[in-house]
Structure formats: C-alpha cells, structure tokens
C-alpha cells in the first residue's frame, strides 16, 4: 500500500503513524506537507493526531483550510481510503468530510488512557479484519473528543451503519460509564456515507507492537491492507 501521512503544523503523531506503516507493516509511506496540493499515487491517506495549529480556536478548525485538504476532498470523492485519527478526525469533521463536531471532554481534562471500543460495523475497509462486535483495546489521548451531532444526523448515522466504534466495557457493554469523554451514543469512530472515510478518536498506531504491550490497533491497518489487496485483485479481473 502507498500511504500518505499528512503533516500539518502541530501534527505530532505523524511519525508514529509512519513508523507503524513503514517499519512494522512494511508499507510505502510518504510524508505529505500540508501545503502540497496533490495526493497522486497514493492508495490511502492518514490524518494523524496532534495539535494542528495548536488547537487554537477549535480543534481542526484552521487545519481544514490547508491547501492539501482540497486534495483530500477529491481523494475521498474518488473512493480512496482516508483515515483520521484523533486530531485527524477533528479535522475531517471541520472539513465536512464527516458529520458532527467535537466538544470538550465532559471532565474538561485531557485524558490519556486505555479504552475499549466495540466494533459496531466489521464490514468496512478499516475493520474487515475484526469480528462484528469484537472488543478492541485502544488508547485515547485528547481533550476534545466529546462527539456531538444533531438528532437527525445521528439517526442517519445509525441507520446507515456509519457508527464504526463505540466505547464499551472490557466485556463489550456499551454503557455510559464506559464512555471516557461524554460522546453522544458512546461514539468513538464514524465513517462517511460512502464508507471510505473513517474518523476515530482512539489511537490504533499506539498499539501495534508487542513491545508496547498491546497489538489490537493492528486490526485497523491490516483491514486497510486487505481491502486494498482485494480491490487490486478485483481490478485485475
């Protein structure tokens, strides 16, 4: 897979994503500076976590105007894979590539800890390596991950199986107590109507290696790989 990792001023999980894809999973990684305007040759792009533009004004609000974001719109419209993690998710929301907005965490604190998320839809390019309902342990690290959208949009998300991850207990119960940040409906990750854009608050790139004590994040990247693999096979036919 040829994957681009976008670099905005203030991105800070860009190296982590590149490390996982390149050093651990052996893929071709291109770092894409936010002022670039082309994503030619890439199969997927990742908008990494961090504090683009210092999170000033609102998370993701300024980064969405970076030149590269026009290319991302185009890229997404062509059905290619776009994964936004944490700040990347926030940017996708601000850019309108995904519906909704982020509010401050209910506790008003930054929270860095392990969370459990339930795979609500295992038939996506990002979750096909998971079993439906599988519980993944993936850490979060954010201050603004309290997902909000209006009831109509929420109904649409639910109806179209666009909610991909929900915060849950270790044994998979989706209850308010398992939600670390106050997110509506325990939402931890959603995809676009077309299905090729995923935004998630937890950081799968932080749990891909045994050395770090947890490999659940591997499922996400593995899913993307096998999706692209199958697509390639299909195209050849």
């Amino acid at each position, binding site marked *: 897979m040829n994957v681009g990792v976008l670099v905005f001023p203030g991105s800070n999980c860009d190296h982590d994503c590149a490390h996982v894809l390149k050093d651990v999973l052996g893929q071709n990684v291109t770092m894409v500076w936010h002022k670039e305007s082309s994503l030619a040759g890439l199969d997927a792009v990742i908008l990494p976590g961090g504090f683009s533009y210092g999170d000033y*004004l609102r998370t993701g609000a*300024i980064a969405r105007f970076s030149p590269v974001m026009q290319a991302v719109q185009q890229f997404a419209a062509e059905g290619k894979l776009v994964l936004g993690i944490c700040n990347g998710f926030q940017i996708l929301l601000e850019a309108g590539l995904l519906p909704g*907005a982020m*509010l401050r*965490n*209910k506790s*008003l604190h930054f929270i860095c800890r392990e969370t459990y998320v339930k795979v609500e839809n295992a038939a996506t390019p990002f979750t096909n390596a998971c079993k439906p309902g599988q519980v993944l342990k993936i850490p979060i690290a954010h201050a603004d991950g309290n997902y*909000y959208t209006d009831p109509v949009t929420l109904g649409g998300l639910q109806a179209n199986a666009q909610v991909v991850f929900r915060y849950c207990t270790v044994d998979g119960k989706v209850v308010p107590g398992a939600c670390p940040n106050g997110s509506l409906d325990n939402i931890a990750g959603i995809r676009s109507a077309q299905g090729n854009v995923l935004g998630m608050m937890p950081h799968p790139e932080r749990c891909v290696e045994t050395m770090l004590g947890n490999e659940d994040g591997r499922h996400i990247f593995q899913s993307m790989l096998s999706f692209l693999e199958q697509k390639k096979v299909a195209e050849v036919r």
Partner: protein
Amino acid sequence: MKAKIHVTLKSGILDPQGKAIEHALDSLGFKHVANVRVGKYMELDLQEADRAKAEVAVKSMCEKLLANTIIEDYRYELTA
C-alpha cells in the same frame, strides 16, 4: 473598522465548561447562580471603510472559520 464577535454554543447543547464554572461558583458560596454558558469573544481590526463591505467580510469569516455552525451561533457588531 473594529469588529466584535461573540461565538456561543447553541442552546440545547450541553456546555461542560459552563457546568463546571457553575459548580465552582457554587462551592465558592455564590449560591444564586444558574445557567452559566461560556463562549468566545473576539475583536479584530478591519481595514475597510465601507460598512456594508465590512459586514459581508465579517459574516463570511464567521461562517467559514470563527464559528462552527453545527454547534455554535455567532453575532457581531461593527464600530468605527
């Protein structure tokens, strides 16, 4: 021309910061306080003498950048 812009959370959207402040005020002994809401206040100078043009500009800044209209309302005043 100077623009003064208020960006506030839409009514109906839970404002955790407002809640926290309300709580803190309460424990400081301010018992008669309710409905605390927190928003942003921005000031900027605009090199534009024409009021109508300035208005168009500020409105467009708010829509595009300064407010997220999914969760926020905005209002502005222009002063010379």
